[in-house]
């Protein structure tokens, strides 16, 4: 049964020319790769990234040594494909999201009230699902690239900080700092969406 065969076994079979093993691997990862591509590029570009990723996976299967998990390896290829694709596109000027960062008074105390500070936690209950989906996609695309990449991989794809650091070629502390900045901006954005100044 292919459906219960470990990834690494399928990868070895696929590298030896077993098409059904490769097809099973594609089936396992296609949705996750597509979702990652949408989040790192756009709905328009994601199908190309999806195709490029699995072509690269196929070509490099013989060099997969199992030093990392197969899924991590595929994610790394997908991330590189998405970033390459995005670099080839003219970047539209991003609107600054600094306006959504938290505000403090002269004593370093939060300027907003507890109720105002908490409201972003309920954004998904207060907003129409479709509207939130559109706004979320838009604002993630507006994040500075460095923050977007770290946030998408760490918080949306739920990779470990160490894996994100390896995929992006930076150290874990840098990943944490970038994810933190993205979270601050997006938290404030969600608050603003429900009508409360962050």
């Amino acid at each position, binding site marked *: 049964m292919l459906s219960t065969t470990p990834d690494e076994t399928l990868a070895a079979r696929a590298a030896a*020319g077993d*098409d059904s093993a*490769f097809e099973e691997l*594609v089936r396992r990862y*296609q*949705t996750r790769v*597509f*979702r990652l591509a*949408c*989040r790192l590029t756009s709905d328009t570009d*994601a*199908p190309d990234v*999806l*195709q490029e990723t*699995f*072509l690269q996976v*196929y*070509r490099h299967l013989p060099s997969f040594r199992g030093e990392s998990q197969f899924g991590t390896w595929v994610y790394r290829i997908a991330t590189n494909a998405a970033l390459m694709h995005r670099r080839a596109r003219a970047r539209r000027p991003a609107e600054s999201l600094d306006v959504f960062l*938290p505000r*403090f008074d002269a*004593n*370093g*105390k*939060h300027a*907003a*009230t*507890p*109720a*105002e*500070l*908490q*409201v*972003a*936690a*309920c*954004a*998904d209950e207060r907003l129409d*699902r479709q509207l*939130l*989906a559109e*706004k*979320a*996609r838009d604002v*993630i695309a507006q994040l500075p690239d460095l923050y977007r990449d770290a*946030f998408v991989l760490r*918080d*949306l794809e*739920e990779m470990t*900080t160490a894996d994100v650091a390896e995929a992006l070629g930076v150290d874990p502390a840098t990943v*944490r*700092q970038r*994810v*933190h900045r993205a*979270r*601050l901006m*997006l*938290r404030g954005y*969600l*608050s603003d969406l429900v009508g409360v100044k962050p």
Partner: protein
Amino acid sequence: MKDIACISGVELLMDYLEGVLPADLHAALEAHVAGCARCAAFVESYRATPRIMRDATAMTLPADIEASLRAFLRERTRAFRSRD
């Protein structure tokens, strides 16, 4: 124990949640949040943000894109093999 203001507490949040803060700072931040309603509310919304954004951007693979992927891979892997 070291006193922490809201503004510096916010800057430590990610490291705090990832468990990489030095023990003294970790304890100081916990003590501050326990006594600060504003920071407690902020932490709640900060922690919820990834989940809300993740759920909002979840998606399935459309059938037409899956079909295009299959056709693309059939053609390109065949071409790749025939070069060997």
